[in-house]
């Protein structure tokens, strides 16, 4: 989990990329489309490659052989662990927040 936090402003796009690659290997455009469908966020090319280069640097994803101008990436074991930790934390926060909202409805 600490690894993604080290990425500063790139941690959120990094998490989206990891979540996209959890489904299987993808190249840049496939990731952008998948993330848009999954989270409603369209990653710009600079943001996507800023995140990809950091994730690759940290060993959370790995580049595969290029297919023409496209190069697919896959999630590594370390990447899967980091993604699981992050999503577990987010889910716990979401569960707690939602149960609190149910208990004490704000603005009702």
């Amino acid at each position, binding site marked *: 989990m600490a690894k993604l936090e080290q990425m500063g402003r790139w941690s959120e796009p990094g998490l989206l990329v990891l979540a996209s690659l959890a489904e299987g290997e993808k*190249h840049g455009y496939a990731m952008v489309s998948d993330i848009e469908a999954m989270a409603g966020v369209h990653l710009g*090319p600079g943001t996507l490659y800023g995140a990809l*280069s950091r994730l690759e640097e940290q060993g959370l994803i790995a580049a595969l052989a290029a297919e023409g101008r496209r190069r697919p990436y896959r999630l590594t074991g370390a990447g899967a662990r980091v993604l699981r930790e992050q999503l577990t934390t987010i889910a716990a926060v979401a569960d707690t927040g939602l149960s609190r909202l149910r208990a004490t409805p704000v603005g009702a």
Partner: protein
Amino acid sequence: MRRATGISPKRLASLLVGLYPAAWRKRYGTEMLGLLEDDPPSLRGLGTLLVGAADAHLRPQCTWTKSIAPAVRARLSLSALFCCWIAVSMIGIGFQKEIEDPAFSRAAAHHTLLGLAHDTVLAGALLGAAAIAIGGLPLLGQALLQAFRQHDRPLQLIVVLPLAALACFAALTRLLVALAPSGSVARSTWIALAVLVPWWLAGLACATACALAPRLALARLAPSADALRWSSRAGVVLAAAMMLVTVGLIAYVLVLVPVEPRLSGQSGGPVWPSTGLVLALGALGALASTAIALLSVGRSRRALAEA
């Protein structure tokens, strides 16, 4: 989306990819261009490319930097440093031209801080010229020897390129001065545009030629690591000189505007903004160039430590 310039977003995006460091482009450039083919970027997407390029320059020690040999990275960084010096030199020349009126000299004599700021710019310019001479002359000597003793035709053209550009610019300047009736530039917007726009474009082309020539020459010469180390040490002095020039320019603007509002508010012609604005823009340009120069000199030192 197509801009008024006729440049499509895809073409503009490809140009922006060129702003990334060479090592980064070598590792990610092809696939990023592939992505831009599949998903032409919006205006915001183009903005992310600018931010991404700046970020890549600020992260010099990544695995992708290893995709280019240290000596080549050192050469590229030194070339970038020289380009920054050319930019600061142009700004410095513009600064001198903007304040050539004797009223500015009188103001500098009257206000100590203004005079000090002006002297700081001059001291930086002199120090920079000395650093260029010390760091660049050995490389120029090597280029001249290789170009003319070994009859290296492309290198001969590269060596002659900045001289030819400067000669053409000087000739155009003389021609425009001769053609434009005395005082007409200050009176007529059309004459000012007809004279100044070609002159500015020619100046830009001349500066580009002067900045490109050392880059091309360094790529062809492949100087030894020792020669690059020598130039890199001079590069540290050059970066310090650029800092001096920048500090002097910023101080000059900060002092001039409040103490001499009439001088800072005057304009050199119908298409020319006020002196204060011109000097402030110059100071900003010098600040940006100096920041890039500092990054470049740091990168060249790191690359040479690996070589």
